[in-house]
């Protein structure tokens, strides 16, 4: 794993859960290409979980810790169903439980939340009895994970945890190599003329 230089004060288990969800969406993989085998860093290696945590705590109501609890509860119901445990209410799920699930089961736990297959009254506030918010947050996890991973965020290096105005692009972001994006440009000369000009329509 690449080194983190500016860790924040999220609970260790909250971090584990966010790492676990990012790992499902964008895992590290070995790919084959015409030139041979290549390794691709996943979202955990590029600290996208940290990006999610920072953004969730920048919302009008901070949600990083509550979202982690939401994932734990879903994981709990996943375990309960699998091992036929007696009651969801008999003991609380332990923090970080979601991160203990294998990848495939983590995905099922996310789907379970998305499909609202958890007792909504057991969830932490503000998710409690709020199905729309649950679905919006699941959508946001996907959207922000992809946006963080494929944008320049990791390239901010040791400034990436700073407030936005105090970040600088330190390195060429690794994910740009995975898409072939050359980065911001002053221009491209791929000009192939005009199919239509306004002056052609003056007689309209």
């Amino acid at each position, binding site marked *: 794993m690449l080194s983190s230089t500016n860790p924040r004060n999220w609970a260790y288990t909250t971090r584990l859960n966010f790492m676990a969800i990012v790992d499902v969406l964008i895992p590290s993989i070995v790919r084959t290409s015409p030139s041979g085998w290549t390794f691709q860093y996943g979202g955990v290696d590029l600290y996208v979980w940290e990006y999610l945590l920072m953004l969730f705590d920048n919302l009008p109501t901070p949600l990083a810790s509550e979202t982690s609890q939401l994932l734990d509860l879903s994981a709990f119901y996943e375990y309960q169903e699998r091992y036929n445990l007696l009651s969801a209410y008999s003991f609380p799920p332990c923090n970080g439980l979601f991160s203990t699930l294998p990848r495939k089961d983590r995905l099922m736990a996310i789907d379970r939340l998305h499909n609202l297959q958890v007792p909504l009254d057991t969830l932490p506030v503000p998710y409690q009895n709020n199905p*729309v918010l649950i679905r919006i947050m699941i*959508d946001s996890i996907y959207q922000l994970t*992809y946006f*963080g*991973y494929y944008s320049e965020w990791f390239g901010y290096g040791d400034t990436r945890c700073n407030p936005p105005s105090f970040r600088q692009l330190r390195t060429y972001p690794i994910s740009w190599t*995975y898409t072939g994006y050359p980065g911001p440009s002053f221009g491209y*000369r*791929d000009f192939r003329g005009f199919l239509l000009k306004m002056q052609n329509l003056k007689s309209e």
Partner: protein
Amino acid sequence: MQKQDVIVIGAGGGGAVIAKELGEQGLHVLILEAGPWYGNKMWPHPNTEAGGVSSRCPNDLDVGLFKENYNRLENNMNNQITGKLRWGPANREHPPWNRSYQQRGFVWQNSGVGGTTQHYLANSPRAFPASIDSEWPLTYHELVPYYEKVEAELPVEFAPTTSKEELFYFGARKAGWDLLATLNVEAPGFRPQPNAILPPNANFLNPAYSEEQLSWMEGCTLAGHCINGCPIGPSVDKIAKRSTNVSYVPLALKTGNVEILPNTFSYNIITEYHPEEGLKAIGVKVRNTWTGVRDELFADCIIVAAGAIETPRLWLNSSLPVNQWVGRGLVNHQMDMVTGIFNEKDLLPILGCSEVNPFVGHTSGARLDHPGLGSIQTIGTSPGLMASFTYALGKSGATQSEQYGIQKGRVMGKELIELMGDYKSSLNILICTDDEVDIRNGVSVLTETPDENGPIPSIRYTPTTNTLRKKRKLVKIAADILLQARARKVIHSDWPDGMMIHIMSTMRMGYVVDQNCESFQVNRLFIADNSVLNNGLGSANPTLTTQAIAVRTAEQIYKKYF
């Protein structure tokens, strides 16, 4: 501060236009803008320091500061929570302003001088004539002179062709569609996007100039940063993509009669009862977003141009008279995305090169219009936006559609990595449906959850059956064009219904305001944003029509009250 003739709330697509028009008539205009002002010497560090109070001088505009802020990095610019172009106060130590949603999705808007035009694609099609003539209190014919004036002022030109437009035109022709050489669309066909982007200058292909040198000259450099906030140009008023902060705002300042207060949230319209005029608007209560200091400002006319969510919120939070259409009838063009992935060997004979390169050229340079159904348009963004809008937003996991032979829904893991590995060989098509007005859709306020500016907006939207039927047909048309262009794979993103990007019709003309955009119930209160649009324009991007109507409204205000 001198006494104002007019106060305009909001410096976005509509507010900047009406301020410039009224300023040219000699009226003293004060614009109140809730967000920051990028590229103005009075606010050298707009996201970290409070800066000055107001600006009214064109010499305050500074292209160096502008380029420093619009730095073309997509997370820096477009992150909806902390990016420069977000919906929230200038101070990035504070979160975005809150909204409550009654369905999956989100509203994508910017605060700041220029409003959401800061990241809009500058697409400037006129409404479909049939969509105006069938329902509006104005005729299309009456709107044409105002369209022409705005088109000349911005100016609007057809987009140049780069690889992705070439590929779209190839597919559209093969699919049997004709070129539509018109601004007044009455039949289906494809065409280059009419948009408010300056054409490349005469030296664009001259190798004696580097790309960096060209970026300081007048004209688009096809750099592909429309959606990230365009910084290309020699001065603020000559920036290539004509967001209103670089088009109408400098023109407004040049009149010498327009003053702009950024960082100023308007949270209440002040009214009084006049024995002859009846209820009339006389002022605005505001809050400085840095200091929290509140103030009251007064003028002869109040123009609200705060956007299709905040304008009804402001009405409702000001306890103005009850009108069953206030906040109602929201349309958002029920958008979706269809994406083609191409093989390099198939692209070569069509394009003369083996890549589409979606990051090159205008973010949206080509479209197909289909009156009665809606429009589709090419979209080419930087990779973070591409991944998040194309592959993250499906309503459910990926499935294979038997009906059209295309894949539908969200992708992840290895499949996402492989699809983004084909980023340079991908072409996105955005679906904009001719969305029907339904009174059940719209904006209300949640009195139990106020923020510092009052009860927050609550947004409810469910598309009608007819809207969804039209969307399905447009998805099929888009997929067919991609397949005709020899796409190896086609993916339909299947966006949730509440993706609100073209938000309009929440204060409808003929229902909340008259044909001059004056409130039926509060005299001297005008509206000049997307909310007055009577319907979804048949699917055309709303900005140009809002701007044309703002020009007309300025005429009417001057005639009636000054």
